[in-house]
């Protein structure tokens, strides 16, 4: 039982202890809180926990299989797609959702796909390269 006003991001972080999903702003802008809900990438700060009842939620913790990183995580490492790492969980979830829907995106499509995710460090170039690299991977 949760209060209706409990945000999904707070439920994930504080009730479930899944702190991979980050709170980066107060204004529903940054998408550091991005998770997949029923296969669609959404801002978990802008969804109520009660709205997620009975729905599939995928967080960044769900990408790796044990200590086997997911191809999108491997790509971000290989291509230096992060610096401070604060936006990274959200970027990974947006990238994952993008590639699930479009396995060979153009650079323009990648930029559009991550256009909801704000990064203060990288200038986005390495992130785009990381997503391109992930797309080249065959083990999805």
């Amino acid at each position, binding site marked *: 039982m949760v209060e*209706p*006003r409990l945000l999904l991001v707070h439920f994930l972080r504080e009730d479930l202890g899944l702190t991979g999903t980050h709170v980066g702003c107060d204004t529903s*802008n940054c998408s550091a809180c991005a998770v997949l809900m029923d296969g669609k*990438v959404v801002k978990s700060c*802008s*969804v109520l926990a*009660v709205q997620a009842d009975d729905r599939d939620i995928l967080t960044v913790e769900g990408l790796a299989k044990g200590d086997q990183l997911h191809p999108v995580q491997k790509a971000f490492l290989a291509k230096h797609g992060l610096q401070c790492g604060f936006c990274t969980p959200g970027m990974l979830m947006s990238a994952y959702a*993008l590639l699930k829907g479009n396995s060979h995106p153009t650079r323009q499509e990648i930029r559009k796909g991550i*256009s909801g995710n704000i990064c203060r460090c990288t200038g986005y170039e390495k992130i785009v390269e990381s997503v391109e690299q992930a797309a080249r991977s065959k083990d999805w």
Partner: protein
Amino acid sequence: MIPPSFDYASPKSLPEAIALLSGGGEGAKVIAGGQSLMPLLKLRLASPSLLVDINRIPGLDGIEERGEYLRIGALTRMADIESSGLIREGYPIIRDAAEVIGDPLVRNLGTMGGNISHGDPNNDMPAVMLALGAEFIATGLAGERSIKAEHFFTDSFTVALGHDEIITEIRVPKHPPISGGCYLKLEQKVADFATAAVAVQVRLGEGWTCEEVGVGLTAVGPTAIKASKAEQWMRGRKTTDINAIQKFGRRAADESSPATDIRGTASYKKEVVRLLVTRAFRKSCERARGGS
């Protein structure tokens, strides 16, 4: 960051939702995609006593042509509008707008019904609906009724809906050939509010005369604005008359009343309206004639 307390209900049927809204009085509010409402709750700019979540009500989404109109279910997500082949082919002005609403995450949840009925002058679809001459179906305790877009947007965050009413359907009249439309938005960054945005829908007649034109303006007044004086002026003029198009743009801009803010001065925004209306009109004519 933490919303104020409220009660929450997730009805599984429309009658149940309407009963909850009616019973909840002034403090009851519909939540659909929540992409406008949740930011307000988190900043405590809204304090509803009851949220009526309509996401679990079946049958409220969908995009299909029915006889004389295109039906868009109120719960249709912006992402589905963006990816709809039917809309891309037949109503590209709607896709133009869907593409620039928020960001990809917002579009996965944000709904057509919400974008229409939230009442924020920065919402994009109202101007599109004004340009298209659309009508909305509202369902409440007294049953269904239809409201023309031009009568719907009454004031900032105020639309012509009773407390017990929910928008369930958006109906866009099929436009006879030779028709074309376009939505253009100037924003400083993705998911920002528009500095200004315009919707133009045109129907061409003999010799490329402007037989019919609809113009909707976003973010330059207390509500979306139908530039009806400019529309009236342009009807009957040749769309190949460059001077007429320039004057038309100016007249549409004169019907806007933007506020000076961080995105620009009022006069700057009016100039943006003038420019965008001119470009959108030309592009609509191109599309009508079978161009891009």
